[in-house]
């Protein structure tokens, strides 16, 4: 009997030890933080340089802020440089941009956070950076598009988590980087015009299929966006904005999701030093990277947005600048948006209610036509309907701008930003340069009582496959 008892006890002890070690192996606690650090001597806070998103010799490191520095673990030892880590919604994987060798282009990689094994997802001749998980087992990233006929720089692409089904989703002469995903399922990205002249960096929003692109937030003239933006648990969007002049201090800015264009609050106005990046934490606190002075290294801190106060340093290594951070562990999955894109269709439709509505109301101006301009040429001049509405069928995935003109051809409204329509996308505008917080009036636009005008106008007929959404 005693023998049996002893045997059971031994077996139980062995099982317990096995379970203990199995569970500990590679287990990452939700308290842990994944940071990117760099020894680079270049001024990484200068976001106007081409190396802003390409920091050489940067490392992705797992740290436990509750434990000593010795607990840190370099996750990308095999890489010459790696950055932009993002954790999957279930907390089991990490996606990041990396270079195995200095001469390699930046590629997209994924690491299993249980065993730290990594695999390549996207490896192209051009740089691919700033990956982010999308709901539905897909990812979005920025790819450099050299000698592009659309004259863009970094365009957004999406693909399956294994790298297949790689698709471009932005089609205008802009550059898009540092994408995040809002809880509503849309991509929030930093976009700026690069052609015909360089424009200001803005927060842009679009659906993961590339439809319904819109401005989410634009800094005032004296400031520039210098970091990705992330959404907090209480419905705010936080990011870093710095003065226009090189070397000016970066501040943590908060806007609300509900009204992003008119809710800007500088959370760090009363704090000296320089903020470099910010990310929303699960607890409601923010993780910021910050340095007190130019001579200091950038370190990771906790920041309380309620009291607007900087907490303790979570990770401070004098040999490194801490570029960014992301919490380990599972986090809320955004909504998976349905797609209206149908690649069997060659066009998209756009309708405007009244080209004479600007700002908040009817402008009183007498625009009677619009000119649709492509990258290199005019695509057509179209008469507006008597109520100022127009209705166009535009070749998909080609950028265009619209300006309003009067009956004598005089320009009334300068061109809007570059727009594109995805195949089968349908979009509406209230007016031209109207207040973006305006909604359409409830009226039937006269233009939609007729067939849409084909753009470019020299196309007489577009043969579509039959569309049947309903």
């Amino acid at each position, binding site marked *: 009997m005693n023998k049996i008892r002893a045997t059971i006890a031994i077996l139980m002890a062995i099982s317990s030890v096995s379970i203990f070690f199995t569970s500990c192996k590679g287990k990452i606690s939700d308290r842990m933080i994944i940071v990117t650090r760099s020894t680079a001597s270049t001024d990484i806070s200068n976001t106007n340089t081409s190396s802003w998103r390409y920091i050489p010799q940067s490392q992705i490191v797992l740290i436990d802020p509750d434990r000593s520095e010795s607990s840190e673990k370099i996750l990308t030892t095999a890489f010459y440089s790696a950055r932009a880590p993002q954790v999957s919604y279930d907390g089991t994987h990490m996606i990041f941009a990396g270079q195995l060798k200095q001469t390699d282009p930046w590629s997209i990689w994924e690491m299993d956070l249980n065993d730290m094994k990594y695999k390549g997802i996207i490896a192209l001749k051009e740089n691919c950076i700033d990956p982010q998980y999308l*709901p539905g087992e897909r990812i979005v990233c920025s790819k450099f598009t050299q000698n592009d006929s659309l004259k863009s720089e970094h365009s957004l692409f999406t693909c399956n988590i294994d790298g297949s089904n790689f698709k471009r989703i932005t089609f205008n002469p802009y550059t898009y980087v540092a994408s995040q995903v809002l809880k*509503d*399922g849309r991509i929030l990205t930093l976009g700026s015009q690069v052609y015909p002249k360089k424009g200001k960096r803005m927060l842009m929003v679009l659906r993961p299929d590339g439809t*319904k692109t*819109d401005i989410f937030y634009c800094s005032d003239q004296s400031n520039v966006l210098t970091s990705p933006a992330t959404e907090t648990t209480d419905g705010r969007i936080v990011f870093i904005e710095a003065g226009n002049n090189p070397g000016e201090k970066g501040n943590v800015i908060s806007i609300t*999701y*509900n*009204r*992003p*264009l*008119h809710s800007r609050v500088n959370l760090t106005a009363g704090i000296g030093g320089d903020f470099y990046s910010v990310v929303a934490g699960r607890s409601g606190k923010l993780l910021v990277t910050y340095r007190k002075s130019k001579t200091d290294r950038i370190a990771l801190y906790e920041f309380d947005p309620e009291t607007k106060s900087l907490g303790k340093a979570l990770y401070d290594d004098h040999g490194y600048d801490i570029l960014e951070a992301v919490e380990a562990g599972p986090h809320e999955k955004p*909504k*998976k*948006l*349905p*797609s*209206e894109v149908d690649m069997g269709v060659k066009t998209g*439709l756009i*309708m405007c*209610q009244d080209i004479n509505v600007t700002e*908040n*109301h009817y402008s009183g101006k007498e625009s009677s036509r619009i000119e649709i301009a492509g990258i290199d040429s005019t695509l057509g001049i179209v008469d507006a309907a008597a109520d100022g509405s127009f*209705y166009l069928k535009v070749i998909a995935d080609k950028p265009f701008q619209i300006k309003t003109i009067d009956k004598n051809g005089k320009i009334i409204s300068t061109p809007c930003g570059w727009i594109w329509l995805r195949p089968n996308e*349908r*979009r*509406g505008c*209230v007016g031209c340069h109207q*207040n*973006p*917080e*305006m*909604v*359409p*009036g*409830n*009226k*039937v*636009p006269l233009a*939609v*009582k*007729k*067939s*849409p005008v084909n753009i470019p106008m020299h196309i007489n007929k577009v043969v579509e496959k039959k*569309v*049947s*959404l*309903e």
Partner: protein
Amino acid sequence: MKTSRIISVVLFFSVLGLLIYFPGRKWARGHVNYQTAVTDHPLNCLSCHLYTQKTGFLSKVINRKYMSPFNLAVSRSGERLYVVAQEDNALLVVDPYKNQVLNKIKVGNYPHSVILSNDEKKAYVSNQWSDEVSVIDLESSRVIDTLKTGNGPAGMSLSADNKSLFVVNSFASSVSMIDLATREEVKRLDTGNNPTGTQLSPDGKTLYVTSRRALIAPYGDTLKSEITAVDEGTSRISERRNIESAYMMENVAFTPSGDLAILTMIRPKNLVPSIQVENGWMMTYGIVVIEQKENGRVIQLLLDEPNKYYSDPFDIVITPDGKKAFVSHSGVNTISALSIDSIRSLIARSTPEQLKSFSNNLGISSRYVLKRIATGADPKGLALSSDGKLLYVAEQLEDRIGVISTDSLTTLGTIGLGGPKKITVARQGRRLFNNSGHTFQTQFDCYTCHPDMHEDGLVYNMASKDMGRNLTNTQSLRDIGDTPPYKWNGKNQTVYKQDGMRFSTVLTRTEAFNYKDLDAITAYIITGIPYPPNLLYNPKGELTESQLRGKAIFERSKDSYGKEIPENNRCITCHQPPYYTNLKMAYVKTLAWSDDSMLFDTPHLNNIFASPPYLHDGRAATLEEIWTKYGKDDKHGVVNDLSKIQLNDLVDYLKSLRAPQYEFNDLKKVQARKKTNK
């Protein structure tokens, strides 16, 4: 022998099991795929075959009877709440301090509102589905009288002298004035379409009656909904104001000084092609502010924000100091607290052009919204304590009352009403039906276009192919479980498909319902939406002479000249009882130039009187117009041989059609009679 028997039984069940598992499973997969129009819906027989049971033992076992508080009143002392339990046909007397239901007083069918007499000795409860007001003695907690009203009594108000009761007849679009001494209805005045809310001005001179449905007008005309002002002194209509581009004006409140009347409202975008949800292209929500002075202005202010919509505003109350207003948004489980002074200030310093632009400006709400306060599911009626310190909220699908501090604008607690603790699948479906959380930026929910689970009387440009095409008249969802297919073009064979992925891609434009939620909302739609009784045209199931003549025309096989009517062109062929549809597709030559070529799903006709306008694109304002204006070629039934009187008879009969259960009952009676005769 025994062993062989056991082996036989085991073998039998093994073979049966294998048959069920392999061919049966394949068949089940195909069946579920057809029902749901997807290939990965879990093979869970219960989700469809159990939770969609409408009647019988199983239905009783799985479902519960809830309270569903809808409106409420509070005594001046604050010691009693009087809560309308709509689904329980009762008035609950609640002690808010002890958190206890003291009494349950049974009233009429489907009660709507409650008000107290000035001396607080009586309560009046309008019973929307039994056309009466229950008069309750509050001391004895007993119904002491029943007052007859018009059809669908809803909001009520007492005259300033407390001698007359004004009752809004929501289905008949009128307001009744009842002399409380004689118990007689002394006057009935026409109001806007489908009125519900009413309030007497603080000076006791003007009674406002709101309306929910817009006035019937051709598609493309500016949408207008009426607010009706009654001169309390003369008991005559003093003004009819058409509020442009708004509808669903559920309730109204006056400021204590009487300078403003404020109504809740929805500004729909049914005339705009439904091509996107972003930027308020489907629905917006807000208030109508009416200045109470000579040439007073009417201003519409949105309560939404650019990326967040506050759907289905229902009730509004204003604090006794006139400083704050509270609006319940049943679609987002939220109360908006508004600053009245900020509204006054905004109105005072804005030009007419600016004021006009506010009705389409999502940012303007930041000027007067003080706070958004979360509530339980489906907040409906509101009541303030006499000192204005406490706000009570009827949380309809939570079976409880929320209590909010009007000073701190925080929730202090809740009062349970003793409803079932278990949330059934169908109840969860109803919560989903009423909640905008499954629409991009919470812009609308099923209830928004299907108020009272019916329809909103609007025609939408669904723009399925090109913009400006395929106008769609909203259809009622009452008792539709047995009337597949769905949509006018009949493309959805089941409710599952109707509310599945397609719903998300074309309408809500956010993540589709997960399958658990889809099962729940399907269970609710199939089992839980009854028709109100047709008390207006067929109160007792006995047809009038005109209706009987109309019935004969409806069922005829020969025209007035004795010529045989082809079977497929008789009313009764396609519109067979009990649902008055043969569930088949038909060609009735009603396609418009803007329609894609298609056949139409034959619509059900139960309670058809309550669903104007008619035809798939709502072009017929009345039932009569279906034939006088749009049926000239006799393709939608042979009618051109009918005289005007005969057509009137036919229309009278159609208006008499009731809920399908009456048809089932009639059928049973006929069968019983036949048996007896035999």
